[in-house]
C-alpha cells in the first residue's frame, strides 16, 4: 500500500461546495484518473480518502490536505498531473508527496489553521476590538449542541485563538487569524468574526491560507517541508 499526501486548493466558486461534496468530487476524479485506490471491504466498499480538516462552505482554501491510499506505486508528479486533468475548475492539486503508511493520520495531528480575512476598508474600531480580544482572559461564544443541535452551549474559545493580526497590504487590509483546529478543539473563523465589528451587507471574504500540524514543538505544514509557522508575519511572507 502506498500513501500520498495531496496539497490542493479549493478556490473561487468552489468555496460553495460542502465538505461532503468535496469528498465525492475527489473520489470520482480519482476514479476517472484510473488511480488504483485502496477500498474498505463490505457491501458498500469505500475508498480511503482522509482529509486534514473540513472547510466550512463559503471559505476558500489555498493549501488543503488530503491523504490517499493506492494499491500501486505511482510517481508523485504523474499523480499530480493525471488528477488535475479530472478536477472541475476551482479545485487543483498543487503538490503530491509520498508519505509512510505508518505515519499518524492527518486529522489526528492537525493543530491549527491560518485564516485570512480581507477588507476593502478597515472597519471602524476593528483594531481596538482585536487588541481587546487578545487581552481578555476568556472569550465566550454560543455553540449548538445536544441532539439535533437544538441546545445551546456556552464555550470559552480564548485558548483556541492563538494569534490575531491586522495588516495593511496596499489598498486592502487583512486580518490574519491563527486558530486552533482539529480533534483537540478549536475555534471557527465565523465565531471569531462574530465577536468583531465587521458586520456589513456582504460578509468579508475569508480564506484558509494554511493548515498546521505539531512537530517537535513547532507548527509545521502537513507536507513536511515548509512552511514552518513562527509568527503570522513570517508565514505571511513565505505563503502565497
Amino acid at each position, binding site marked *: 500500500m502506498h500513501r500520498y499526501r495531496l496539497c490542493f486548493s479549493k478556490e473561487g*466558486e*468552489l468555496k*460553495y*461546495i*460542502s465538505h*461532503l*461534496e468535496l469528498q*465525492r*468530487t475527489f*473520489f*470520482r*476524479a*480519482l*476514479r*476517472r484518473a*484510473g488511480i488504483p*485506490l485502496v*477500498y474498505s471491504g463490505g*457491501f*458498500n*466498499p469505500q*475508498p480511503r480518502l482522509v482529509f486534514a480538516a473540513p472547510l466550512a*462552505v*463559503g471559505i476558500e482554501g489555498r493549501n488543503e490536505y488530503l491523504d490517499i491510499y493506492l494499491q500501486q506505486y505511482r510517481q508523485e508528479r504523474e499523480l499530480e498531473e493525471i488528477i488535475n486533468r*479530472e*478536477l*472541475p*475548475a*476551482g479545485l487543483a492539486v498543487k503538490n503530491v508527496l509520498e508519505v509512510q503508511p505508518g505515519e499518524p493520520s492527518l486529522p489526528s495531528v492537525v493543530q491549527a489553521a491560518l485564516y485570512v480575512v480581507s477588507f476593502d476598508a478597515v472597519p471602524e474600531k476593528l483594531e481596538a476590538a482585536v487588541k481587546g480580544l487578545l487581552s481578555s482572559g476568556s472569550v465566550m461564544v454560543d455553540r449548538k449542541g445536544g441532539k439535533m443541535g437544538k441546545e445551546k452551549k456556552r464555550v470559552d474559545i480564548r485558548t483556541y485563538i492563538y494569534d490575531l493580526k491586522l495588516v495593511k497590504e496596499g489598498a486592502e487590509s487583512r486580518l490574519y487569524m491563527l486558530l486552533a483546529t482539529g480533534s483537540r478543539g478549536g475555534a471557527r473563523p465565523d465565531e471569531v468574526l462574530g465577536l468583531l465589528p465587521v458586520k456589513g451587507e*456582504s*460578509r*468579508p*471574504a475569508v480564506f484558509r491560507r494554511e493548515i498546521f500540524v505539531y512537530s517537535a514543538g513547532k507548527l509545521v505544514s502537513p507536507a513536511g517541508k515548509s512552511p514552518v509557522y513562527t509568527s503570522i508575519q513570517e508565514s505571511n511572507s513565505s505563503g502565497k
Partner: protein
Amino acid sequence: MGMVKKMGKKASILFNGGLLGKVNRPSRYLGSEFNAVFKSPDQVKVHLVLAFPDLYEVGMSHLGTKILYALANSLPYVYAERVFAPAADMEALLREKDIPLFSLESRTPLSRFDLVGFTLQYELNYTSILNMLHLGGIPMRGEERKQQHPLVIGGGPLALNPEPLAPFLDLFVLGDGEEVLLELLQLYRDWKESGARKEEFLAGAAGIAGVYVPSFYIPRYRGGRFVSLERKEEHAPAIVERRIVSDLDSAFYPRSFIVPYLDIVHDRAILELFRGCPQGCRFCQAGFVYRPMRERSPERLKELAVCIMESTGYEELSLSSLSSSDYSGIEELITLLEEEFAGKQVRLSLPSLKADPFAVKLAARIQGGISGGITFAPEAGTQRLRDIINKRATEDDILSAACDAIEAGRNHLKLYFMLGLPGEKEEDLAGIVELCSRIAAAGRKRSGRGRPLRTTVSVSTFVPKAHTPFQWEPQLDLTEVRRRQEYLRRQFQSLKNVQLTWHQPGMSYLEAVFARGDRRLAAVLEEAHARGSRLDAWSDHFDFQLWEKAFHERGIDPHWYARSSPGYGEPLPWEHLQAGVTRDFLACEHKLAMKGEVTPDCREAQCAGCGLKKCPLAGR
C-alpha cells in the same frame, strides 16, 4: 475543459460576494460540474435551455434530460444549457436582488434564450413552470410573448395530455425526443436566419410529425363538457401522433453524464436497457405511452457502459428501464459487465424488479446476495384486484420472491401498493395487511442471522391517467381515501418492524384533476401560481387550501375532473393526441378489467392487438 466567460452580469453578484452562501445547498446553482458543456452563446445559432420544473436533485436524476442535453450539444450550431426550479430561499434572493432566473452554465437570463424546453413529468410541477417563466422574465401566456421572447416548448409523458398548459407553451413534442428535437432545431435555425414571424415558425413546426401547436386549435364545450376541438389553421393536423424511435440500438445515447457535486436523488450512471414495457398494467401510463418494447443490444450497452463509467467516475451503474428483469439479454449483459468491471469497484443495480424468483436471483447475483434493500410492487392486496389491473404476479410469486430475498440476507424490503383502484373492496385492503404480515412473519423466522427485517409499505392513491384503460374511471372520493388510509393505519399498528407510508391524499387528488384535465384548468394554474403555489411535489410546499381557493376563485369544480367517468363514446380532451394505442383497445382492456380478466405480456403468447403500427413484437 475551457470555461467560457460567464454572461449574466446580474447573476454574478450572487457568486462573487458571499451572497450564495446564504442559501441552502449553493452547489445546486454553480453549473461548473464536471462534464458540463461550455460553449460561447454568441458563437452558436440556436441557444436552448432545458428547463426542469423541480429542484436540481430531481431534475439532474432524469434520464431524458441527460439524453437531450448531450444530443443537442453534439450539434455545433446549438448550445443547450440547464435550469431547474430554484428552491424557496434562492427564489427569495433572486427577487430581493432583482436577478432574473438564469441558466446554470452561462448564467444567461431565461428571457434571452431562443428556446426554453420544459420536461413534463409530473402534474404537480405545473405551477413551477409558470414560476420559472415568470422569474426568467418571460410572459407566461404564449399570446403575450413577442418576437424577441423565447419559444417555450414542452416534452415528456405529460405532453400527451398537455391541455391545462396549452396557453403557456408554444408547442409540445409527443413521444421520443431524439429525432424530433433535431428536426425542430434545424427548423428553428432556418427560420431564425429567414427573420420570419413567430407564426411561421409554429406553422412549420406543426408540420413535423409529433409536434402539437395548441394555439392552432380551439376546444369547444357544451353544458360544461368538452365536445370537440376546432382547428383554427388549415395546415394544423387533425391528429398528432406520438413519435417513436424504432431502432433504439442505433439511437443517440450519451457517452458521458454531468457529475453533480450534490448527492442527487439518483446519483449514478444510468444505462437504459429498453424503452416501453411488455406488461400492460392497466393503471400505468408509461406502459401504454412508451410502447412498443424496444431493446438495446448487450454489446452496445456494454460499450456505452465503459465510456460512461470512465468519463464520470461513478461507482454505480443502474440497469434501468420500466421493468429491467424483462430485458431479454439481462443475464448476458450482467456477465459482460461483470467481466468488464472486475476489480474496478463498480456496483450494478436494478431499479425496478418484478416480484418473481428470476428477478430476485438476478438481484442477489449483482449485489452479491448481501444486505441492502429490495423493492417489489404488488400494487394490490388480492389476486382478484391484481387481475383487474393486469398485474400478473401471483400471491405465491410475491411471497416466494420476498422469502428468497429475506433468505439471501436482505434486511430491508420495500413494498408498493395502490389504494382506491377500480373495483377495490374492503377485502383488498385486508389483503394488503395480510400479505405484509405474512412477509413480516417470514422475516422474523429467518434463522437468527443479521438484523431483523425492516419492511416499508408505501401506499399511493390511484390516479386515473389519460391514454390508459382507466381513463374512463373516476378517482376515489377524497373522504373515502382518507377513511381507507385510516383503516390501513389501524391495521398496521400491530405489525412489528413494518412501517406504513402514504402519499398525501390532496396531492393525488390534484394529480388526478390535471391528469385528465382540459384547457379550462389553465386559469386555475395561473390563480394558484399567483397565490404562491410552486414546488408542490414537496410536502413542505404543498398547500391544499391554496388550491381549493384557486379553484373556487376561478369557478372551476375540481371534483368534476377527478371524479368524472365518461362513457366510451364521449369525446375526451386529449384524443387529438395519439399515443398509438387505439381507443378500441383501451376500451376493450377496460371491459376486461371489469370482468377481472387478464391480458398476456406482449412477449408471451400472441399480440393483444393494441393497434400500434410497426410493432416488432406483433405478428410473430
